[in-house]
């Protein structure tokens, strides 16, 4: 929006009021301003031109049979159902509910046809018991060492790092963090708590898998 000087703003408002038919002409101060301001005079010229142009728009003449056509259409077109003619709606709803109820009761009381499913004997081959993770890692390390001795002449003896499972559970490591969360504000606890719980559950699962004896039978899906 252009910031107009105060006089021009008043001149524009006066022009709007003239075009709205609220006042017959400019107030004296606006009229004297318009004499000296080219932009406001151009506004007035354009408005006058617009009004003259709009007055030349002739009213559009309708075809003589317009009313007849509308009457014919109105008689053919289905009328909107009034409240009086909608008396059958509750009856329809009642009939629909009765039919639904009959079908539901029938469905529950009658013996329905149940398709028989052929039983196929499935023998699930149990996989070999997986070795514990620590043993697997040790075997892999030895294999790498043997390979390196074969490929590199006079290769030095590879000393495998000792691997052992952690003795304390990840839950214990998480506890201090959880405790520090408790000291934070309610907002922080509420927002982080779901995440912490998820981490705890995930850690619990991993720990159980790692630490448990692998006697369990492999799962078959």
């Amino acid at each position, binding site marked *: 929006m252009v910031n107009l000087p105060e006089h021009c703003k008043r001149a524009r408002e006066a022009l709007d009021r003239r075009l709205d038919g609220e006042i017959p002409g400019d107030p004296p101060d606006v009229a004297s301003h318009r004499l000296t301001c080219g932009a406001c005079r151009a506004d007035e010229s*354009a408005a006058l031109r617009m009004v003259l142009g709009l007055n030349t728009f002739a009213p559009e003449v309708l075809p003589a049979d317009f009313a007849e056509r509308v009457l014919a259409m109105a008689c053919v*077109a289905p009328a909107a159902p009034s409240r009086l003619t909608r008396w059958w709606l509750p009856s329809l709803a009642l009939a629909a509910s009765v039919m639904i109820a009959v079908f539901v009761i029938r469905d529950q009381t009658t013996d329905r046809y149940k398709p028989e499913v052929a039983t196929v004997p499935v023998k699930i081959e149990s996989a070999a018991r997986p070795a514990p993770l620590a043993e697997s890692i040790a075997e892999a390390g030895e294999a790498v060492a043997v390979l390196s001795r074969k490929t590199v002449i006079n290769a030095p003896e590879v000393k495998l790092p000792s691997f052992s499972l952690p003795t304390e559970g990840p839950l214990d490591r998480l506890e201090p963090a959880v405790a520090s969360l408790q000291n934070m504000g309610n907002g922080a606890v509420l927002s982080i708590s779901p995440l912490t719980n998820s981490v705890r559950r995930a850690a619990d699962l991993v720990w159980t898998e790692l630490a448990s004896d692998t006697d369990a039978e492999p799962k078959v899906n």
Partner: protein
Amino acid sequence: MAAEDTALVQHCLEGRPEGMRLLIERFQSDVFGLCFRLLHHRQDAEDVAQEVFVRVFRSLHRWDGARPLKPWIMGITVNRCRTMMGKRVRRPEYVDYLHDKPARDERDDSRELQAELRLAIAQLRPDYQTVFVMFHLQNEPYDVIATAIDRPVGTVKTWLHRARHEVLDCLKRRGMVPDDFVTAVKTADRKD
């Protein structure tokens, strides 16, 4: 007028053809005029005007007898025109005469001015266009326009002023306003 409206509507609700005919004849010029000015196409305007009256007859039982009938009918007209304009968005524009540029005649450029005005009005956004056409071409008062478009009178005034300034700017931009136009008109008035 309200009592007259109520009696007329009552006749229509009773299904009397003479009452229905009277209602059509009373409002057909306003309805068709608005349709034509907003749609810029005679056949479309006729179709929409027919549809408006059919809808009016269908919905007369919902008309609030405490209010005047005309703004209610004009409201239905505005809505039907909007629907038609919405349908046109998906169709190629065939309102070719909006882009016509009649030959400039120095003595009488009223046809050119009309064409420029049509173009300027068609470029307004639909709300402004409706308000401008209803006020300047249909000579409807603010309250009828406000009821028809379901907006407060203040909003109608604001939209009308903005629409008018856009039209004036368009006329100035396209060289339709000679510099000495006001002076020339005033001088001609004094001679008369």
